[in-house]
């Protein structure tokens, strides 16, 4: 079993046609469905649904309140290595870019950990580029073991590994895995990636390998803007729902990072506007009401402030995307441009001002 079977079923599906045909009646039905199905989800992602955006937002808010309450969970990313053997056209860490390469020693990781923990953050996301030589699984595992001393939940966003390796990381204290497919469009995927990452299927199946290895949470997503975003958002939702079905004990979340107009000198061919981002978020909430929704500091403050209450359940705050960035400030270039530079304290104050509580700790190392 693999989510790939679902992808294959949609291979000859005419998205443009189906989305174009969605009309008012379909959207009304999707909005009133107790458990919207894939067709409803598609209708909610259609251009025609834009006219019902306020209704979608209202429903999304209501579901989020009931399911998650007036809380937003906070986390921070921690980049420990930027060595990468891949060439992803849109990424600042890709092999061809002339940036200083480095990886943190355990002492340096500890230093970063202390700085982040002092802000109150208890959930950490550790990230690396893809280099089995410079940042092998053993190195990632060792980092996780160290980080779990400082945080109550350690997640990772690293290159895909096999099931025994995920199990090894879980044994080190890994709590959650985040892995984005970037795009579910196989042709675009193929065109944008060079290096081991080019193996679409290996990456696609990574979340289920991690689930089989008993991570507690798993997050999927697409980098919206690389390909037709409606199709990518649709398949992201289906992927999350598929994981929920197959691994009911695992907490599944989705993320909707959008490609900045100019990223790594790569221009987005399918720009996602603010309105469209909100539409995607609300459609996710209606289709997969129990899934977490993450918004990072890629989004600027104004958007993040206004997304609170719409469906988001998790936000990063006070982020640095450079290796060693918390202790030293930028010594290297970050993986992507941060748009919201506010401190953890400032983001917390913003969340409170919107009638929500920032939650720093929402898991317990067992």
């Amino acid at each position, binding site marked *: 079993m693999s989510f790939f079977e679902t992808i294959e079923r949609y291979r000859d599906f005419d998205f443009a046609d189906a989305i174009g045909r969605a009309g008012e009646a379909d959207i009304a039905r999707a909005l009133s469905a107790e458990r919207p199905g894939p067709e409803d989800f598609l209708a909610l992602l259609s251009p025609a649904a834009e006219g019902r955006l306020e209704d979608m937002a209202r429903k999304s808010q209501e579901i989020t309140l*009931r399911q998650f*309450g*007036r809380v937003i969970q906070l986390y921070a990313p921690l980049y420990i290595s930027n060595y990468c053997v891949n060439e992803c056209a849109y990424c600042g860490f890709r092999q061809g870019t002339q940036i200083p390469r480095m990886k943190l020693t355990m002492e340096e990781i500890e230093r970063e950990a202390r700085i982040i923990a002092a802000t109150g953050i208890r959930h950490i996301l550790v990230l690396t580029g893809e280099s089995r030589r410079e940042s092998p699984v053993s190195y990632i595992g060792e980092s996780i073991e160290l980080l779990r001393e400082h945080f109550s939940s350690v997640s990772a966003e690293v290159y895909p590994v096999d099931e025994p390796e995920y199990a090894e990381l879980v044994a080190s204290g890994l709590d959650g895995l985040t892995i984005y497919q970037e795009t579910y469009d196989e042709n675009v995927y193929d065109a944008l990636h060079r290096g081991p990452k080019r193996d679409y299927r290996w990456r696609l199946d990574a979340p289920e390998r991690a689930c089989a290895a008993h991570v507690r949470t798993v997050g999927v997503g697409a980098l919206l803007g690389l390909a037709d975003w409606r199709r990518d958002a649709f398949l992201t939702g289906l992927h999350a729902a598929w994981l929920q079905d197959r691994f*009911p*004990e695992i907490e599944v979340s989705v993320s909707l990072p959008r490609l900045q107009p100019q990223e790594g000198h790569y221009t987005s061919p399918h720009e996602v506007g603010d309105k469209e981002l909100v539409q995607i978020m609300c459609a996710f909430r209606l289709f997969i009401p*129990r899934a977490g929704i993450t918004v990072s500091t890629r989004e600027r403050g104004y958007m993040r402030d206004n997304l609170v209450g719409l469906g988001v359940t998790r936000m990063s705050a006070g982020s640095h995307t450079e290796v060693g960035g918390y202790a030293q400030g930028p010594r290297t270039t970050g993986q992507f441009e941060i748009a919201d530079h506010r401190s953890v304290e400032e983001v917390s104050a913003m969340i*409170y001002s919107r009638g929500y509580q920032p939650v720093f700790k*929402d898991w*317990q190392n067992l």
Partner: protein
Amino acid sequence: MDDVLKIAGREIRSRFLLGTGKFPSHTVMRDTIVASGSHIVTVAVRRVDPDAGSENMLEYVPSGCILMPNTSGARNADEAVRIARLARAMGCGDWIKIEVISDNRYLLPDNAETIRATDILAKEGFVVMPYMNPDLMDARRLRDAGAASVMPLGAPIGTNKGLRMREMISILIEEMDLPVVVDAGIGLPSQAAESMEIGADAVLVNTAVATAKDPARIARAFAMAIQAGREAYLAGPGSIKKYAEASSPLTGFLR
């Protein structure tokens, strides 16, 4: 005659139990607990951070309350047991609400694992309050495993759908000699009153209070409804437990 709820030998001042998740801030939570008059409040161990100083939510639970930590996030008995022991080590006392959920889509309790956890924790001296799917046989198993009460769901967590499990819960109330606390799914004071009218011993509410526009105010409404429901139960025909009645006031003349 005094109508006092007793759990594990302790007199409980209020039949309204309050959950503390989902509140917009710790201070709102505290004010709401005070307004509710609740004596037992449940706190998710996963949310407790003893190192958080003034941000530690336990600091906001009024001192007169019985703290009932819960094992939210546990997917099996072993995790629930570990969380319970952690709660005790954190100084949260001996009461524990067991929540074992192995299905994240519906958040339904896993009775088999809950029974297993109850068995282990009751032997370790915990006052065990298990959240459960209202099944009579499982309720009996929980009692035999040492549970101090049973806490059947009215409807799935966070749905605010009310007493959807009414028939099954009525059977538990009828048959069980342990306190029956309706937990989860209660969205309105009227639904809490209904639970009490059919003879539940108490009601636990979280989402409907924490996410209301004015949590303290709706907490007061719930407290009144729960009291009213209890009064109705005591006043009505439902007040007479069928098998507890010694004589036969209606047919006693047939002799």
